[in-house]
């Protein structure tokens, strides 16, 4: 955006919206007045402001609590209010710090959808989270930090592909798997392990999308008829554990 963060702090804050991890303070204010104040600080159009606040509060199921004092909100409501501030603001750069901690499952999904909507409207969104499922749902790119250090940063598909043997391919054949077929599949490369058992073969590969077409061609050429293929890619949990575990080993 071309703004000097040291020299032009106020300008930076004009384009930045932060939903803090802990929604604290303003004990005696009401959610509606907190949002009105926030909108006024970011020069949200006065005419549109009230409608925007009302819609955001309804979307996040805060409308019924609009006139309660902040101190009487539940942890989940306070957290949703923290998110609502950024949604009303619609900043160019939005930072959400643990946006759904203390929020129930239904509330989580609502917050996630609104964050995605914000992204689709053109905001750059940074989400700090310990919840892998949240990152998987929201992120285009994931940065994994371990003990304050950047371990890896990439898109989710690339991170998953980076785990050697992370994709598991389970193939069912009409006949028992022959040694010849196993040898042929080994010669294709790309598979870390091949485990035949009766009519089934389990293979751990790095990129299933590359290996499976080769495997089907080789099987066809040997006359081995495939009855089923199941591909399981690693979850972001696996990715996280893979990279942070590796980091731990590196440190030791």
């Amino acid at each position, binding site marked *: 955006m071309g703004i000097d963060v040291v020299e032009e702090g106020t300008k930076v804050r004009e384009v930045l919206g932060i939903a803090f991890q*802990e929604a604290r303070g303003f004990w005696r204010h009401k959610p509606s007045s907190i949002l009105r104040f926030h909108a006024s600080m970011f020069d949200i159009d006065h005419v549109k402001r009230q409608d925007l606040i009302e819609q955001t509060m309804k979307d996040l199921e805060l409308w019924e609590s609009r006139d309660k004092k902040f101190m009487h909100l539940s942890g989940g409501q306070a957290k949703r209010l923290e998110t609502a501030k950024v949604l009303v603001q619609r900043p160019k750069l939005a930072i959400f710090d643990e946006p759904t901690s203390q929020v129930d499952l239904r509330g989580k999904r609502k917050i996630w959808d609104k964050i995605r909507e914000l992204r689709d409207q053109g905001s750059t969104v940074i989400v700090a989270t310990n919840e892998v499922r949240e990152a998987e749902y929201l992120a285009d790119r994931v940065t994994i930090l371990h003990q304050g250090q950047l371990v890896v940063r990439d898109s989710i598909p690339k991170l998953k592909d980076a785990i050697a043997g992370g994709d598991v391919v389970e193939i069912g054949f009409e006949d028992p798997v022959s040694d010849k077929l196993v040898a042929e599949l080994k010669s294709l490369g790309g598979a870390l392990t091949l485990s035949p058992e009766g009519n089934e073969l389990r293979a751990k590969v790095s990129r299933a999308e590359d290996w499976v077409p080769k495997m089907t061609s080789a099987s066809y050429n040997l006359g081995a008829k495939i009855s089923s293929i199941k591909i399981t890619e690693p979850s972001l949990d696996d990715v996280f554990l893979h990279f942070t575990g590796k980091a731990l080993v590196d440190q030791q």
Partner: protein
Amino acid sequence: MNRVLNLAAFNIRVLLGDPTWFILSWALFALQLAIYGSLISRLVGSNLPNYFFFYSIGLMIIVVFESAEDVGRHFVEHAHEGELPYFLSLPVSRSGFLVAQAIYGVVNTLLKVAPPLLAVLFIWGNLTVSGALFALAALFLLGLGITGTMVSLSFIAFKAVDIYMAVLAGLSALLIRFSTVFYPLAVMPNYYSPVSVLSPLTYGADLTRWVLGFDPKYLLNPVLAAVVVTAIAVSTLSLSARIVDKIIEGVKAA
């Protein structure tokens, strides 16, 4: 500037949302004046003419002092209740943030002190628009000076709140006792008067009394008092702006 006013208004709305504290403050003022003020005035008798009036202005100085102390505490509470990081994320410069705090402090002080001042002047038959305005201006300047001092000291609270509270208690005890809040410099023994001229309250109290027509022979030179009160306001507010700029960047909620 609009944002600074918005920020101040946000805090002031909380203040106005609960008028109990103002009513209590006015009631305490009236009670103190009615009981202690009237009795002590009789004891002082002719040694200091019109001591009741002298005392009532001193009491207002205390209200201003405590109100300015509130601003410092308010600032520290913002940090410890998690509001400060939010305020710091808003598009307002750090000096604008401080101005918003000062406006909050001024409104807080004026709300607490203006009704007692007007009541005292009315009862005393001394209520004029110019007198009331000049007196409020003097109290306002003093309030700014104390506010600046309290905000400047708030850096202690970022290390330890208990020490900050202890420093405030100690400081208020010393600044009030060693000042002309309750007794004029002219009647003080030599071992007290040199210390009392160090208290900013001395200048604020004597300036306000002079503005309201108290006998000048018991007061400091009003020009000196006005200069010192203004200098304290400007210097402590500048200092607090520097300190706020230095310390609050990177402050974490407790």
